[in-house]
Structures are given as C-alpha cells and as structure tokens.
C-alpha cells in the first residue's frame, strides 16, 4: 500500500506557538501522519512535543499554521471539536473519576440511553465488546481507583475509542508503566493498528520507539528536525537528531574525594496508604560529588528525597548530615544545616506564583537577619538580593516585583535554582531540574549544578532523564520497587541501556559490584 498520491490522514503545516511569557514552544513545525501507522514523535524535554499534541487535540490553538484532516483544512477550537473529528488523546495525567467504575468512566458524557434512562447493561456490553476487540482487558465493573495504573491507562484509551476515535494520541504512555504493562500496551497498539486505527506515540525512550513505531518525527527546540522511517533508524541516529550533536553532553568535572556529607542508613519509608515505598535504602553522598538516582517514576526515589528534605516522615533507619542525625529536625532546621532543595514540581511546590519574584527569592531565608530584623522586612535588601540573583542566573523578567506566575517555565525554574543556590549549600537535593525547561535553560542549570558540586556541595540528583543523569553524576544508584538494585561509578562505558535494564528489573548486579560503587 502506498500513500504517495494520497493526502496524509492528519497533517500539521507550519505550526507556530508562543506562550505568554515569550517561550516559543513550536516554531514552524510540520508533521504528517498516515492512516494505519504508529507515528512516534520523539525529542528531549521541552522540544515542543506536548505543545504540538495539544494543538492537534484542540487544547491549545496555534498562532499560525494549519491542520489538515485527509487533505482538508480543519480548525479545532476545543478538544470537543477534535473528538468529533475522530481524534482521541490520552494524557500523561489521566482524567478519570476515581469512584466511578471503569465502564462508567468510559461512557461518561456519551452514555447509551433507553428513553431518558442511562442504559447500564448496554454500556457494560459495549465496553466488554470494545475491550475484547482491541485486546485492552479491563474489568468494566471495577472502580477506577482500585485499578493499577496500566489498567487506568487502558480505560483512558477505551474512552477515546468509545467516542469513535480513529486517531489516538498517546502522550508518553510508557512513562508510568512497568515493563510487563509496556508489553501489554504494545500488543494493544498493534491490535489497534491492525483494525485501521492510527496511533501517534510520544516518547522519550528510544528502544520503545524503535520497537513500536513505523515512522518517527524528531523534534528539537520547538522545531521539527526530520522524519525518518523506523526501519532506517537506529538509536544512535535518533539520539544525534534529538540532541543535535554527535556526542552526548558531558560536563567537565573535577575529581572529588570529599568527606561523607549525607549518610542514609537502612531507611524505610511508607506512603499515605501505609505501603512501603522505600525499603532498607542505604547510600552516602560525599562533598563534591553528584549522586544520581535513576528509576522509573514511582519506585521510591522521589520519596527518598522528600524524606531527606523533611517533608515525609520516616518509618525506620536514619538520615545524617555530617555524621549528625537530622531526623528530629524540621525543614527550617535542616536548611539551617546547609541543606538546599530544588523540588520536582516548581509550580505546586517550588514557588508561590501569586507572590513577586523578590518575595519568592527570600522565602526560605525569612529568619535571616539580612532580610528581616526585629520582624521587619528589609525591602531594599530584598530588592537588591533579587536584582543580584536575576543578573547572576540571567532570569528573563520585567523586574523583581513581577509576579512569579508571569514567568515562563524555564525562568520559573531559574528562580527556584537561584533561591536555593544563592548561598553555597552543603547538601543539595535536586529532583527533575530540567523537566519542561527549554534547552538553553537546561544547559545553564546543568552548568550551575556542576559548579555547585565543584565548590564542595554534596548533590543528590533524581531525574527521569537518563542522559541528564549520565551527564552530571559521579555515581548512580538505580531504584526498583523501593530498593537500590544497582550502583555504578559513572564512566564513558556506562550507557542508558545498562541503566534502563536495571530500572526495569531485568538485570541485577552482584552484591560485590554494587558494594564497589555504593560507598
């Protein structure tokens, strides 16, 4: 079957989108998706993939450019318009009603009726038929909150199919899945394509992309770099297109031999449901080194960082800074010991969006005599501090009094980084420092983290971006199901594949190998 003389099923031509705050998310982007293919869109964080997908699904509107559906120009003013045109999208964050059963969620908004009554029996039958047809097995009667993440995702996919979706957009569907669930998802995708559906698949992980897709569009820095048939692609080739240079970026690092600053000893943590999320974890971070934490999201690394930061209570074990246990200390006292922390989510945790940048920049140091004496704020010093940090971290902003909400993602992250690193910390906790941050800011933040390390800080870095971990870390710990399953000293021989295999629990280290890199 050739598509040469046929218009692509869905085509975007010359799409540009600039967010308020001046971030150019899409710059003259082109993509053409043919019927019956799995079309992967790959690119680094901040390459503009999500924005493009939101435009295809009508969540965002392009500033310029056009969309064509089977050759005809269309305009999606809202997701509703896109759904009516046969497009369905599954977001990374599901939009399901937790207390409703799977079938209720699937038919919600387009319920089958008999008269004015919601015909539940028919709904359940339809959902059963749909899930059998596309090999997306879920129990329709189970409440969604009791389903594992992989099944919730299937409910989302079924929801889109139920509404007559011909084109399915999956935004990083594998990020939240276990390897087993990934295999099942892929077999479902194959069933979808075999039955005439088209799938647009956004991903970070190149092996997955090579396995499932038939064509690949590569994006970098808001632009489309190129389109390539999967059979012609290799991981290296894709990586080079994504990053735009032959070798992966490695930051210059001084050798280190500092004293142990952070010691985590046999730490156990539980989540809100009293399930163990960190089990018997021990690690050390020395002054002047970066220890990277690798792992699929939800394997305990985020909770470990929260516990060290003082935001999560500890079920067992000990955490010490400089040989002294910090478990009895609150957040403020831990910060007083020289701890700084760049949290995973700058909007929900790292900033007060309604407050000014100057206020955000002093929020962690309000008991410092520099900014508050006798309970009175020194507005002049706050302003000077803000101006200093804006200059030093080149934050693009109207002035210190601008509200944090008015900044772009990259500049917001710089405000967080600037605040935490305004004084050289002894221990720095970093989670996802460059998630959703443009490439320029990413490189800047990487450099700053390395400088902080070189100046003697012990840095604990958690990131979903393996290339980031490999570029920055001196040692790497791999988390799997709440335990450290592998530890490496970083070297040029260490690859994302080796890390990935451990992250998925496929390969394990011998105790000796692990011990060699743990200390």
């Amino acid at each position, binding site marked *: 079957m050739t598509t040469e003389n046929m218009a692509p099923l869905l085509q975007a031509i010359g799409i540009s989108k600039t967010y308020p705050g001046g971030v150019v998310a899409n710059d003259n982007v082109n993509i053409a998706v043919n019927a019956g293919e799995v079309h992967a869109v790959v690119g680094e964080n901040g390459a503009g993939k999500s924005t493009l997908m939101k435009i295809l699904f009508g969540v965002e*509107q392009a500033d310029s450019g056009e969309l064509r559906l089977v050759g005809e120009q269309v305009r999606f003013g809202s997701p509703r318009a896109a759904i009516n045109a046969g497009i369905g999208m599954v977001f990374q964050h599901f939009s399901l009603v937790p207390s409703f059963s799977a079938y209720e969620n699937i038919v919600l908004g387009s319920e089958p009726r008999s008269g004015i009554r919601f015909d539940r029996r028919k709904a359940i039958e339809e959902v059963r038929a749909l899930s059998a047809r596309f090999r997306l097995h879920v129990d329709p009667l189970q409440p969604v909150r009791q389903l594992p993440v992989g099944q919730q995702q299937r409910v989302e996919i079924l929801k889109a199919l139920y509404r007559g979706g011909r084109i399915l957009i999956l935004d990083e569907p594998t990020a939240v899945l276990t390897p087993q669930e990934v295999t099942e998802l892929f077999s479902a995708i194959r069933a979808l394509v075999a039955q005439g559906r088209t799938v647009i698949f956004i991903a970070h992980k190149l092996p997955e992309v090579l396995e499932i897709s038939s064509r690949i569009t590569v994006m970098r820095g808001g632009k489309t770099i190129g389109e390539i048939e999967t059979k012609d692609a290799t991981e290296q080739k894709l990586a080079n297109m994504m990053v735009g240079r032959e070798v992966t970026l490695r930051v210059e690092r001084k050798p280190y031999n500092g004293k142990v600053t952070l010691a985590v000893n046999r730490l156990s943590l539980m989540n809100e449901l009293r399930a163990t999320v960190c089990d018997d974890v021990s690690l050390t971070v020395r002054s002047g080194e970066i220890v990277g934490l690798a792992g699929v999201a939800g394997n305990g690394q985020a909770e470990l960082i929260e516990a060290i930061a003082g935001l999560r209570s500890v079920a067992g074990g000990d955490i010490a800074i400089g040989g002294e246990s910090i478990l009895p200390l609150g957040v403020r006292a831990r910060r007083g010991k020289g701890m700084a*922390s760049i949290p995973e989510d700058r909007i929900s*945790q790292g900033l007060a*969006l309604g407050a000014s940048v100057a206020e955000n920049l002093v929020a962690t140091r309000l008991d410092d005599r520099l900014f508050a004496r006798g309970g009175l704020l020194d507005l002049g010093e706050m302003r000077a501090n803000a101006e200093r940090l804006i200059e030093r971290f080149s934050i693009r902003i*109207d002035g*210190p009094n601008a509200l944090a909400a008015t900044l772009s993602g990259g500049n917001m992250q710089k405000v967080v980084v600037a605040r935490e690193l305004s004084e050289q910390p002894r221990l720095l906790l970093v989670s996802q420092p460059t998630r959703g941050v443009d490439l320029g800011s990413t490189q800047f933040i990487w450099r700053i983290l390395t400088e902080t390390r070189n100046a003697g800080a012990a840095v604990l870095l958690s990131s979903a971006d393996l290339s980031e971990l490999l570029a920055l870390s001196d040692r790497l710990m791999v988390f799997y199901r709440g335990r450290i399953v592998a530890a490496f000293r970083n070297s040029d021989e260490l690859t994302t594949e080796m890390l990935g295999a451990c992250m998925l629990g496929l390969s394990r280290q011998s105790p000796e190998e692990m011990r060699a890199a743990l200390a």
Partner: protein
Amino acid sequence: MSEAATTRRWAVLRRETGRALGAAIIALAVAFLIILFSSKTPLQAFATLTTAPITKVRTVGLWIDDVAKLTVAGLAYSLVFQARQFALGVQGQVYVGALAASYIALSPLGQTWCAIPLGIVCAMAGGALWGFLPGIAKARLGANEIVSSLMLNYVAIELANYLIRVDLTTPNSRLLSTAPFPSTAVFPALIPNTRIDIGLIFALTSVVAVWFALYRTSWGLKLRLVGHNSRFAQYAGIKEAFIIVSAMAASGALGGLLGAMFVEGRSFGKLAVSFEGNLAFEGLLIAIVARNRPLAVPVAALFYGYLRQGAQLMSIRTDVPSEIIVIVTAVIILLVASSYSVKPRAMLAAITRSSRPARTHVEAVK
C-alpha cells in the same frame, strides 16, 4: 525595567476598580428594577436610596460611623483570607469583644479614665481568644475552620444574650440591654452632634497596621506565602501552623476591637441584644470586593456603607423594605466573586487568550 511592573500594577488597579464599579452599577440597576415593581413611589424610593445619606450632617454621620465599623470587619476577614483560611468568626469575636468591653465599662474601673483603653485591650484579647480557638483546633486536630468558627459565633451570640439577661441588666429591668455606660466609657465624638467618634481613628489606624503587618513584616510575608501555596511554605521551612493560628488570632483581635467600637461608640454606649445588626458578616463582602487588600478595604467600605445607609433610610421613609440591600449585596457578590476564585495563572491565560479568539471569530465571519 521595573517601570513595566509599575504600569502593570496600575493596570491591575484600574481593572479591579473598573470591575467593582461595574458590579455596583449593575447591582444598582437591578435594585432600581425591583423598586420599580415593588414600590408605589419608585422614583422617590430610588432617590432616597442613592442620595439620602448625604443630605444631612446627621445622616453623613450615620454613614461614616458604619464605614468605620465595616472597615474593621473587612480588615479582619482580609487578614485570614490572605492566609487562605476561610474563618468566618468575626461576628462571634465582635460579641466576645463587646462583652469584655461592657464588663470593664460597668465595673468600677468604668468610671475612671482607663475605661476606654482597658476596655479596648480586653475586647481585643477576648476577640483574639475567639479567633485562636478555631485556629488551634485546625492546627492540632485538623478541624475545618469554616465550621468551627461559625459554630463559635453562635456560642458567643448566645453567651452575650444570656449574660445580658442574667448578669448585666439592672435588677427588675425588662430591657434587653445593659444600663447606659458611664460617659467615661463612651468614645468621645470627633464631630459634635454626629455619631462620628474616635472609632474612626481606630479604624484608620487598623488599616495602616494591617497593611504594615502584611507587607512590611516577615510575619506578613510568611502569612501571604502560606496563603499563596501552603505546600511551598512547608517546603521553604515556614511554620505553617504558627502562621495559621497567629493570623486567626490577630484577625480575632480586630473583631474584638470592632465589638468595643460598637458598645463604647456613640451609637450605643451600652450592650444590647443583637446589637451588631449583621454588620460583622457584611465585612465579608468588603473583603471580597477589596480582594483582601487592606488599603482597598476602606474604599469598599465607603461605597458599601453608603448603600447600606441609603437602604435603611429608604425603608424608614418609603414603602420599600431595607431588605432590598440584601439583593444589591447578593448581586455585587455574584459579580465580583465570579472572578474571585480565579487563580492568577488561569486569569493571565484567560486575559491573553481573550484577544485571540476574537480574531478567529472575525475570520470565521468573513
């Protein structure tokens, strides 16, 4: 660079003022329609509503006296709302403060020069206690502050009713109020023959004090950060529980002050059952319209107090009941509050988006 920020601040001020004025005009139009249908002399009634408060020195006095009280009530709500604590206990704090001031005024101390300062201090302490209780219940036990503060209102109101009937009236009196306070325990007038007394000075002082506390002290910055994003405050090492409890106690002190302003003010000079005529609750409206900005509170109070006084005079002089003001209030709240809960980011997005679909519409029409 910061000029841009300054111009934006002015733009926000203009927009907010425009929104408040727009809401007021629409609300007055609705009021006019209702008066038109319910009154035999609608024009006279509407004229009374809109002009009566400034026709006589005496009525101006009534208006300004209300403004002073509405200002303090509005400040009390603004303070807790800025910490995003929806404590609605100002009414109860007013009653507790009024009781405290009354006990001082009716004691032997009430005959001396210290009646007023001591009365105010005790009233503020009582109010602060009444604000502290729901605060500590939330911080320690996780009790919802809306429920606990509302329930404490009833406790305070009934406590005042009980004490007025049992303990504070003159024997054999059937009045539902205490005896008039000695003149040493009544606020001196600022303008003779009006109700304008030194309560106005307390109100204006409170405006400056609350503004100063919120924007010039580290406590105020912490309080606002807790209000903006409590997860961030925790992460930054701010003691959230302390901020919540102290904000609610400080707001309670303002409520207590308002209680003293009522009973020691020239309008009463005694403690009576149901003396506050729901004014304490109307402070909620003031805070919403002023968007919890202390400097905007007196402006909103001036405006709302005028309408309130107009409505009362209208009900005395014409056949329209003063309840009409409830409708006006409701319309204003609906109009102002409809955008009240919008988060800055969403608001920003809405503003920037509002220009673009307009263009697409034009294209679609072509």
